[in-house]
């Protein structure tokens, strides 16, 4: 029995934390809100230099060939500092999809770029109808002269402006529930592709609408089998959700730390407020949530890495618990801070907003409940 990250993983966490602390933790996120992207880019290339972007990429393509558990330290640390950008989407969604379904050519090109830290991916999934199901995919992809012609609209594409490539869910055939959908890789600078940003409560992340006006892409950009993209996406989402849980654990850890630290120094009625049980017990509840989220997230990533039988339920439960608990404890954190917690100046609100961003991110909470129940055989 050994349920812990190993020494190398913890050591690596140490490097990443030191680096992000050095950059002022949430300072980069705040600069990003102000529209300043230079420091984010610098920080991301620093992380790439540390090796963060190549961890889970095969050695053949310039990576370290490690697994999901090795990604946890980076994910948690980026969560702690609310790092903007597409690390999660690139390394925990695009990479596993490319590794599993990519052609030699795609791997050679994209994985090598990701490993080097020069390129990032986003996912263009949702459409104005708002459905997360396969029926919601209407963006049309017609084959013509060995090419695919894409026309339609995607919304709520995360950080579209920062991404170099998008994985796009397109409709290539009628098919039944899971068929007729294909994943294609589209470069951002493709002609006939326009981008319109959408206002987002979590200003540390961007959302955009993408309009495809007969965007022409070669067949070589299809990721995985034609018409089978939905199932491939589900595979990718397992990796993504296991990783998302770890990011949230990092966020939650920071929130609990903020609450506990503040409760030790803020005095009222001649006492540190942490002596009052209404405060103390609430912070303990937050801590319990944090540790439970962590256990579930570690196990989910272990189940993913080892291909355990219970991986689907483990991953959906980790995601459900983490997203809900993060909303809960980041809200409590504001209450514990009192008036100052309600200001823009203190970080509390940034965590609430990020919690809401993740709550229904790439799949609704309800959908993951259903997935868990089905995986449990109920």
């Amino acid at each position, binding site marked *: *029995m050994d349920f812990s*990250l190993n020494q190398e993983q913890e050591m690596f966490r140490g490097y990443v934390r030191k680096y992000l602390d050095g950059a002022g933790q949430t300072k980069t996120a705040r600069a990003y809100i102000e529209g300043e992207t230079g420091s984010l880019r610098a920080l991301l290339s620093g992380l790439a230099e540390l090796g963060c972007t190549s961890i889970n990429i095969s050695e053949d393509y310039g990576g370290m060939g490690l697994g999901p558990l090795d990604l946890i330290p980076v994910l948690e640390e980026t969560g702690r500092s609310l790092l903007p950008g597409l690390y999660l989407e690139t390394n925990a969604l695009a990479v596993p999809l490319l590794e599993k379904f990519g052609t030699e050519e795609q791997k050679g090109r994209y994985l090598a770029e990701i490993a080097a830290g020069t390129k990032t991916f986003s996912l263009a999934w949702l459409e104005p109808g708002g459905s997360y199901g396969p029926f919601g995919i209407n963006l049309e992809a017609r084959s013509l002269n060995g090419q695919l012609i894409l026309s339609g609209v995607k919304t709520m594409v995360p950080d579209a402006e920062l991404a170099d490539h998008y994985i796009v869910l397109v409709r290539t055939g009628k098919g039944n529930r899971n068929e007729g959908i294909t994943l294609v890789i589209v470069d951002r600078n493709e002609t006939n592709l326009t981008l319109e940003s959408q206002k987002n409560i979590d200003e540390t992340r961007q959302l955009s609408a993408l309009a495809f006006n007969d965007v022409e892409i070669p067949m070589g950009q299809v990721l995985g089998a034609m018409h089978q993209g939905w199932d491939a996406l589900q595979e990718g989402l397992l990796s993504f959700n296991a990783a998302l849980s770890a990011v949230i654990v990092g966020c939650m850890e920071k929130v609990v730390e903020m609450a506990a630290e503040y409760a030790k120094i803020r005095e009222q009625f001649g006492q*540190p407020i942490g002596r009052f049980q209404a405060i*103390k017990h609430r912070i303990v509840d937050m801590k319990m949530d944090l540790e439970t989220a962590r256990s579930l997230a570690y*196990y989910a990533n*272990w189940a993913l890495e080892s291909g355990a039988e219970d991986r689907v339920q483990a991953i959906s439960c980790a995601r459900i618990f983490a997203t809900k608990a993060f909303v809960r404890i980041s809200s409590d954190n504001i209450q514990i801070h009192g008036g100052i917690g309600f200001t823009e100046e203190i970080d509390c609100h940034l965590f609430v907003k990020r919690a809401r961003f993740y709550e229904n991110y790439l799949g609704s909470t309800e959908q993951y409940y259903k997935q868990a129940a089905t995986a449990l055989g109920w």
Partner: protein
Amino acid sequence: MDFSFTTKEEEFRLELRAWLEGNLPEGWLEGISNVSKDEGEYAVSLRNWQRKLYEGGWAAIAWPKKYGGREATLMEEIVYQQEMVRVKAPALVNYVGIHMVGPTLMQIGTDEQKAKYIQKILTGEEVWCQGYSEPNAGSDLSAIQTSAVKDGDRWIINGQKVWTSFGHLADRCFLLARTNRFDKKHKGITVFLLDMNQPGVETRPIIQMDGQHDFNEVYLNDAIAYDAEIVGEVDEGWKVTIALLMHERTGIGAQVFTLEQQFNELVGLAKELKEDDKPLLGNPLVRHTMVDLYTRSRGSLLNYYRNLTKTLKNGHPGAEGSMDKLMVSELTKELLSQSISLQGHKGVLWKEDAISSNSYWQDNYLYSFGQTIGGGTSEIQKNTIGERILGLPKDMGR
């Protein structure tokens, strides 16, 4: 990360399984537990079970070999807990003796005490209870008033204990009494190994809300204890108490595994119960609640494994035990509450009228209220976690 058990641990499991198959009361494995309704008979059967465990070498597996144990590793203790929970083994009547008093005496008892008590704890010949709580000393144990006054080589003890589990079955009591008054309330307490079979000790049953009788009031009227029955130093009993509590290293384990088992049984119940001829588990609201409970039950099991890993690495348990106890007891209560809700109005039918076999859910539901109180209330656990793990300032009273 590694969630497997070693070959040696698995062999240990099989050995225990085989033994249980041969030695559990007749029909037990098939779910027929003919527990006597007569208190006396029940007590005898529990003692017999303890004796059987002893004879099979399964009474105190963690004890050193020289005291009749197996020097089981922490992981073997976990396997042991899992297996005992799996077969819903009869209660261990000498729990206090085996898990707490015995190990404490080995650590700080005199040679004479070791010789006199340890073997009898193992065989079940002497059953122990713990006499801490008093009417005015619950969460604040240092407020105890029971007094012990020196009289030659004897001590005369007067006072009242309450909530003494197994007190009515016990031969001896690990008793806290005040021998001195200092400014510091924790000083001046002494631990006695009190003989329960004497005229000065009167035990009165307290009937619990589940209709059972496990705990008692114990009245001490000029009860006698001797110098030789003091553990550690006079007035320094607080240290002994802490040492004793540290020995309770795997208690939570059993509860975590019981929680897991009860969750699976709850799923069974939700499949069995029908709503318009369809299993209740198909109802989206029920599924939602069940996924929530599953998630948190898994979470508490995994938390436990993570803390266990820490203990295995550090060689000693940390304050995280409080987190396990808090979470498991609260979740158990919630899970059992859900079991009653699922049954609808019929959830109130009790005993032989209960819709589930043997009133299993109703009994466990009622019993669960004690779990967030006994062994330290949830509020006290939260104080401990807040102060020892999060470093928050101490509670005003302490």
